């Protein structure tokens, strides 16, 4: 047994830790398809960290992809690590056990790289929590030569500035190719940490925040963010996998031993979405659309089913019914998988009758119910956000759902969208009344309706990146106004869920934050904020105190309207979509003008294809 191996946490010690903790199965290895490699014989060791619980992290498909990409290399290993619940963290601290990876039980501080997936802003304090539990120095520049590189990826990496102090590097865009380039580079690691990072900064898609300096104006806005060293790119462009058919996909993903949030296997039909909903960050950062071929998907689904034994395959994508051959795919897969009683699910659907028919085809709708997301109640506001859904679409979808025998429907809306007025909330009530009366006409009673309303958070790299978030008091007024409207529209038939406006406020601060917020995140963590995305764990007062201590006004970030030409903290990070396109979309929003989807219409000139060297979906030149 040599030095590295000896560091693995002995089983007896782990078993003592697990005695009495809630759901211990989430801290043990030995799941089906887990990959265990010898640390002594593997040059490059990567800890894939998800800053939330095992149940949440195991539901994330991106982590499964990277896990399989890294483990398919003979010179590399990847292991998983999640945020332990308090009881486990307490037991670990008392026993002096640092955060360890699931597969080998080796402390993650002994790995070469710890890579965090950044899926939502309210997971930021959990990053510090995990680094702290791991015994890894929080600040990037203070880390020792032998500490792992801490890198981050995922949608939040497109404005990672509030976390810039804690990360050595971020990866922008699709990770499956660039992660291999990082592995190769780190494996050859020679010389100092600083030199290695310098080399990493030359990999396309890699952003090393320490090589950039941010300067601020007197009014608090940013003057410039620029490289401090020669050879460092002034703008870091995201990476894209050009041909998704050739990209690796994990056909033997790890099957958890305990129930997780999405307890099914995911098959990614396509990446990106060009519907162009103006509030949607994913719609802009994952462009352009790249589909997998029908044949490849069929092959993958068959293998996934045989290798995992799951009873459900989720046909995932940003808008699954937009897959160009979705009907063929659904009927072929249903036929192929029915002997094993494997069902299909379509997690994100357009609001129309076509989509409802699809759902009817793949699953017993009674089982899961159906959710429509018109996002806004009035046609005017739906046009502002470019949702591209008419009331006719919606009512057709509702009728189709009733045809399918459903008597419970869920609707998803957002409160606080730009230009929203009380009339738009009234329109939600009118819509609900209409749905109820349609149902009544058929069955003579009221259906069960659930209306969920989140709070709009303006996101970077979207046409609404300039917009202020509606102030909290006003959000609360609108929430109770909508509650009254819905009570009038449907009485007890309508259940209304709304999102905690305080959580959305902190999310809005972090989403468009800059480097000065590092202090706030750190103080919030030290004040006990972890698992902020969990409603019952979120501690608003502590977040406010953290801002106060750092001398930072959160409203400056959340509620301020930006000047047209304001320099944003994320302007040196490029999704490929041009800023001028976003500005044009913003103008069109103000006039309720729609922008079509370039998959079925002409090029809208967002600039992503030429910027990333990808041929246009319909051929020809970008109209940008």
């Amino acid at each position, binding site marked *: 047994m040599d030095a590295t191996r000896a560091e693995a946490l002995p089983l007896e010690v782990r078993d003592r830790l697990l005695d009495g903790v*809630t*759901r211990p199965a989430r801290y043990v290895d030995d799941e089906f398809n887990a990959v265990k490699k010898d640390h002594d014989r593997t040059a490059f060791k990567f800890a894939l960290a998800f800053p939330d619980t095992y149940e949440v992290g195991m539901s994330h498909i991106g982590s499964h992809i990277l896990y399989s990409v890294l483990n398919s290399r003979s010179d590399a290993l990847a292991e998983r690590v999640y945020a332990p619940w308090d009881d486990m963290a307490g037991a670990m601290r008392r026993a002096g056990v640092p955060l360890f990876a699931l597969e080998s039980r080796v402390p993650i501080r002994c790995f070469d790289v710890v890579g965090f997936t950044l899926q939502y802003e309210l997971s930021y304090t959990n990053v510090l929590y995990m680094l702290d539990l791991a015994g890894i120095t929080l600040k990037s520049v203070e880390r020792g030569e032998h500490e792992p590189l801490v890198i981050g990826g995922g949608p939040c990496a497109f404005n990672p500035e509030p976390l810039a102090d804690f990360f050595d590097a971020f990866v922008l865009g699709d990770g499956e190719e660039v992660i291999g380039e990082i592995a190769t580079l780190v494996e050859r690691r020679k010389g100092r940490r600083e030199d290695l990072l310098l080399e990493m900064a030359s990999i396309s898609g890699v952003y090393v925040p320490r090589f950039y300096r941010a300067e601020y104006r007197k009014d608090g806005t940013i003057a410039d963010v620029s490289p401090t060293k020669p050879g460092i790119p002034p703008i870091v462009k995201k990476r894209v996998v050009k041909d998704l058919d050739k990209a690796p996909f994990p056909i033997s993903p790890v099957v958890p031993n305990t129930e997780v949030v999405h307890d099914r296997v995911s098959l990614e039909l396509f990446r990106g979405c060009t519907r162009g909903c103006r509030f949607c960050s994913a719609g802009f950062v994952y462009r352009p659309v790249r589909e997998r071929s029908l044949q490849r998907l069929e092959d993958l689904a068959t293998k996934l089913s045989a290798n995992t034994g799951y009873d459900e395959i989720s046909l995932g994508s940003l808008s699954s019914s937009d897959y160009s051959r979705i009907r063929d795919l659904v009927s072929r897969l249903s036929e192929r998988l029915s002997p094993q009683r494997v069902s299909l699910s379509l997690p994100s659907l357009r609001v129309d009758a076509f989509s409802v028919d699809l759902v009817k085809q793949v699953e017993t709708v009674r089982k899961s119910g159906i959710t429509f997301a018109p996002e806004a109640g009035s046609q005017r506001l739906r046009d502002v956000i470019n949702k591209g859904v008419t009331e006719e679409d919606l009512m057709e979808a509702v009728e189709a759902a009733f045809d399918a025998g459903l008597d419970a429907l869920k609707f998803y809306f957002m409160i606080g969208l730009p230009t929203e007025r009380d009339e738009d909330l009234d329109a939600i009530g009118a819509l609900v009344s209409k749905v109820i009366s349609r149902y009544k006409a058929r069955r003579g009673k009221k259906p069960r309706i659930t209306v969920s309303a989140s709070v709009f958070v303006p996101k970077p790299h979207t046409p609404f990146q300039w917009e202020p978030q509606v102030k909290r008091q006003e959000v609360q007024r609108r929430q109770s106004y909508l509650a009254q409207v819905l009570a009038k529209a449907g009485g007890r038939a309508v259940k209304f869920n709304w999102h905690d406006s305080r959580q959305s406020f902190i999310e809005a601060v972090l989403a468009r934050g800059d480097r000065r917020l590092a202090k706030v995140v750190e103080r919030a963590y030290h004040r006990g904020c972890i698992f902020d995305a969990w409603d019952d764990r979120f501690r608003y007062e502590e977040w406010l105190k953290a801002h106060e201590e750092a001398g930072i006004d959160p409203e400056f970030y959340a509620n301020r309207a930006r000047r047209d030409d304001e320099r944003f903290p994320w302007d040196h990070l490029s999704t490929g979509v041009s800023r001028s396109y976003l500005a044009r979309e913003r103008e069109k929003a103000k006039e309720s003008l729609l922008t079509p989807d370039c998959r079925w219409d002409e090029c809208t000139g967002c600039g992503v294809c030429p910027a990333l060297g990808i041929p246009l979906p319909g051929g020809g030149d970008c109209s940008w």
Partner: protein
Amino acid sequence: MAPRQRIRARISKTGSARYMSHLDFMRTLERALRRSGLPITYTEGYNPHPKFSPATALPVGYSSEAEISDFFLDRYTDPYEFGCAMNGRLVAGVHVMETSGVALNSPALASLPQSSVYEVLLWEALPLEELESRVRGFMMRESIPYVRRRKEVSDGRPRGDDTGSHEARPAKPDTRRGEKVIDLRRAVLSLKVAAPSTITMWVTDCRPDEVLRSLDLDKNVLRFMTVKKTSFYVKPREKWLDPMEFDTLPGSAGRGKWGM
């Protein structure tokens, strides 16, 4: 379609697998069945799943070499082949140890009186004499009332296991809170100190930790222990029988045994 074949399997759940809850364990078997491609019978209805019936549920944290389950199949399958196919597709720690064909009309194991033998290893070293005198004391009593209640944990989800108390108050359970009174003494068929810090017990309607808590041992002693179920019995008539010997089909066809 009515099943054509019923196979009884004795399955082990050891190592990391002992941290699975009963539901986790059920899902694990279900997925292994799907992966194996065996002609398992599926239940009817909106949400079909492989048809098998476990005899009992094992608490989280216990290991076992005697989890018995009956599997129903659409086509005749050799029980030995069944075991091999499952073992090739199961997770580490879960293993089919023995299989046998069973008469299709045999009663469900879960409907019969049941008993289990557990081996408990206390991590804290305890003098042999002390342990033995506690055990004697327990066995000499005529009745030991015990209030069993369900427990909730901090995140609001029930943990899926029971806890109880021997509070001095009269054994009147709060049924609204899911409490009930059992007689522990009657539930214990035998209780022995097998070796220093090792107890074996044969029990019917109670759990080993409930028995241990009635031995008046130090709290710290009870904090860490390893529990393993080593045998399981059912009583279809007057005698306790090994389910692998009960209503199993005669003949050499289809018996399988595997090492751990």
